[in-house]
């Protein structure tokens, strides 16, 4: 969760760089609303419960959630950040370890 919080702390820098922040998870709309409210996010979190976007980007981590809720597959997105401009991917970061996330400064540097 600290990743989204870290991005929120730099929200004004992303705004100054003319970039829109949008997050995606496999969680439900309601769960995402809870995340947005509890972290005070100024950017939206999209819900992808059927992993449509996750698969389109090739990011499915099968069984990545060891404790899925009843009825859920436990498949989630591997952590990834995509920088998109003019409808094409300009930069991406796929961390090697889900414990280690990209520094917001590195994303901002890629935006320049």
């Amino acid at each position, binding site marked *: 969760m600290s990743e989204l919080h870290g991005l929120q702390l730099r929200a004004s820098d992303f705004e100054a760089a*003319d970039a829109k922040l949008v997050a995606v998870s496999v969680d439900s709309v309601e769960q995402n609303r809870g995340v947005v409210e509890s972290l005070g996010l100024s950017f*939206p*979190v999209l*819900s992808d419960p059927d992993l449509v976007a996750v698969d389109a980007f090739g*990011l499915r981590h099968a069984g990545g959630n060891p404790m899925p809720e009843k009825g859920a597959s436990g498949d989630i997105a591997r952590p990834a950040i995509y920088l*998109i401009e003019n409808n094409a991917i300009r930069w991406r970061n796929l961390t090697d370890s*889900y*414990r*280690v996330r990209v520094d917001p400064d590195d994303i901002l540097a890629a935006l320049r």
Partner: protein
Amino acid sequence: MLGRMVWLGPLLAIVGVLSYFTIFVNWPITRDVPWVNLLLLAFAVGASIAGFARARRRVLASAGLALTLFLSGFFVWYCYVFSYDLPSAELALDVGAPVPAIALRDDRGQDVELSALASDKLVLVFFRGHW
């Protein structure tokens, strides 16, 4: 004195593991390289060995040492093996690819078309979820 406190090592080990997930994971400087927790676990192993070497109650001290070593081993395995167990990056969309035509619901229940967002500069963050 230190050596007789057979509980000190295991207690430090428990704190050393739990405090990563509850506290130190919140800041990149203590999350990416978990130096605070590795330091705590190093002290825990040292204290447990000292406790074992000097203890009169050998069974208790060896159980404490075993617990400390188990927790330390788990933490190192989690940080340097398990958390790296991700699917191949070769499957993922690469630079230059067009944005897939997909609509998703935002946290207010509104449908959002990715390509409508992506006409500007867009930072799209895939995260693992709130669990």
